């Protein structure tokens, strides 16, 4: 087991910079998830850690040693691929033991390790089957087994659940988490699915256009996003961004969303934003769960407004409501019993204690 460090790592393909100078420190035992839209450089970063891609510039260190020019087999890593990449002509046991057999481990130890990994992953019954006789979820377990038996310093997962159906994905997500809790190997996991990132990671690295946007625990990213990209990427449905400006009104700072709607900011927020120029073009970032139906009793910092709903989406435990504020589409989350109907007027409450204010131009959360 080991820590992994990336220092100003750059990957260029001809003229295109796929990864533009990444700094990342992953500590021992940590579960790190690289998340971002396709083409953000997350898979390339993972493949550079694996040694499957050369790095154009910078340093990658595993366990304190620079491994820039170390071939994959000598980096002591194991990788799980999206399409499993099981050897089709070998049985499950042979697939899992292939790496150990190449390294001429004693037979008894190979058997012991394979048996142990199979038990951990609950695939003991499948040990003599060929990959084509397995379901997608079973194949992914075998792929993980192949990684576990090697007992490597670092696990690398490249979108391992993307080929599975939604239900199985949730199940395997939990399996992966359980396995990590047991083996505690340093893990770097790549996904485009922010739910996977949030549920699995000790820390999430949000990437965009070859750069790291933000590194933080799932809660930090959710509650304290640094940029508009992170704020919009993490959370589903995504955070609403409503054009707004700050106004002084009778000694209090208020935020104006439309000609009709302006709210006084709660004292804590007012103090934080008071120094901002009133002329800046700003965005109010508010998550759908902080736009709910209005109750008779309002907590401090919660403001109400009337609107007409465009569309409602009953989800069972909640209903998503969509409406427009001066042409900006906004999504809220209301109680299914709140009586939200398509095209009907509704009084909604906005919890400004959980608001974010962003600079529209730079996208930075203020």
């Amino acid at each position, binding site marked *: 087991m080991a820590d992994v460090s990336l220092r100003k790592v750059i990957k260029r393909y001809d003229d295109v910079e796929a990864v533009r100078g990444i700094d990342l420190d992953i500590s021992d035992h940590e579960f790190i998830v690289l998340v971002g839209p396709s083409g953000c450089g997350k898979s390339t970063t993972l493949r550079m850690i*694996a*040694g*499957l891609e050369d790095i154009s510039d910078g340093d990658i260190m595993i366990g304190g040693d620079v491994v820039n020019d170390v*071939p*994959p*087999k000598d980096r002591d*890593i*194991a*990788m799980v*691929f*999206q*399409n499993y*990449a*099981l*050897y*089709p*002509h070998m049985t499950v046991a042979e697939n899992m033991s*292939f*790496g150990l057999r*190449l*390294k001429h481990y004693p037979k008894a130890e190979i058997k012991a390790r394979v048996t142990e990994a199979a038990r951990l992953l609950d695939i003991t019954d499948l040990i003599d089957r060929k990959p084509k006789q397995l379901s997608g979820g079973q194949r992914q377990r075998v792929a993980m087994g*192949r990684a576990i038996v*090697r007992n490597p310093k670092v696990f690398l997962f490249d979108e391992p659940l993307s080929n599975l159906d939604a239900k199985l994905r949730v199940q395997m997500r939990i399996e992966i988490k359980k396995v990590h809790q047991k083996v505690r190997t340093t893990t770097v996991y790549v996904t485009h699915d922010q739910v996977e990132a949030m549920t699995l990671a000790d820390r999430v690295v949000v990437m965009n256009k070859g750069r790291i946007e933000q590194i933080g625990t799932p809660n930090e990213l959710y509650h304290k996003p640094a940029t508009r990209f992170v704020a919009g990427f993490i959370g589903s449905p995504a955070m609403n961004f409503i054009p707004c400006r700050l106004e002084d009104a009778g000694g209090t700072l208020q935020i104006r969303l439309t000609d009709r709607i302006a709210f006084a900011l709660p004292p804590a927020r007012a103090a934080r934003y008071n120094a901002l120029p009133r002329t800046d073009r700003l965005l109010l970032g508010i998550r759908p769960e902080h736009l709910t139906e209005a109750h008779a009793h309002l907590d401090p910092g919660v403001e109400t407004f009337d609107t007409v709903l465009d569309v409602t989406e009953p989800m069972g435990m909640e209903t998503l409501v969509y409406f427009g504020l001066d042409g900006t589409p906004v999504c809220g989350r209301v109680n299914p019993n709140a009586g939200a109907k398509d095209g009907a007027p509704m009084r909604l409450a906005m919890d400004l204690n959980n608001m974010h204010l962003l600079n529209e131009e730079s996208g930075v959360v203020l």
Partner: protein
Amino acid sequence: MSTMAIDKAGPSRKVKYGSMSRDRTWALRWSYFFLVLFAIFFLTPPVYMLITSLKSSAEISAATNPWWVFHPTLSNYVELLTSNQFLRFFWNSSIVSIVVVIITMLISIPAAFALARMKFWGSATLATGVFLTYLVPDSLLFIPLFKMLALVQDLTGITLLNRWYVLLFVYPTLTVPFCTWIMIGYFASIPKELDEAAIIDGASWLQTLLRIFIPVALPGLIAATIFAFTVSWAQFLYPLVFTTSVDQLVLPVGIITTLIKGDVFNWGQIMTGALLGAAPPLIIYAFLMDYYIAGLTAGATKG
């Protein structure tokens, strides 16, 4: 018969929308019709050969129905199979074909692996180049090849021309490009992650080739092997050019040169020899047909 049935049924056929099975039935009937037609077309020559091989010379030249054997005899077979000369041709053909297959595989498999997987400068051009080599017909190549080998013989003093083993150098010019080309396609259809997984598992390129690629691509390799064997076995022009002494000849040339004497054609034995010569590829095809088809079509879709 079958065309009649189709014509009669055709106009009276009512269009029934959504009747998949009906369309299917007609598609099947047409397929059978053409399959039978082609089977007859292609099987007639071998059947004629078989019939002729069972006749005596007297019956062949007699003005009787050529499609029937009135006095069947195995004398042609007995004569050929007890003739040292014929057995020599057979032996030469076998040894040449088998060794050529081995040489071809030893060159083609690593070449295809390198061209399909190791991205190096010019690899794509080289892969196309390999295929273009195959497009040059042997009728153009044999003179320069002859000159080259004659030069090598002069320079080294090793007798190459008019020796059966010269064919071991010549045939691979036909078999290697094509086999390499088939296997490039086959190797390319193996998902990239498979060799990446092997590399991470600690396999060298050679181990990846031997322990992953060759087993996974086995149907393709068998297809290539069959091809190389068939080409070597049936090759006529090169052995005709490069070998002349009777004891150095391979089967196709041997039959023609020894069984046609001046303007006397020993038809019975020619046909017998050709049939016996066709037997080994036929047996190989029969056993490996499934692999052969799987191998030729596998590169077409993502495996």
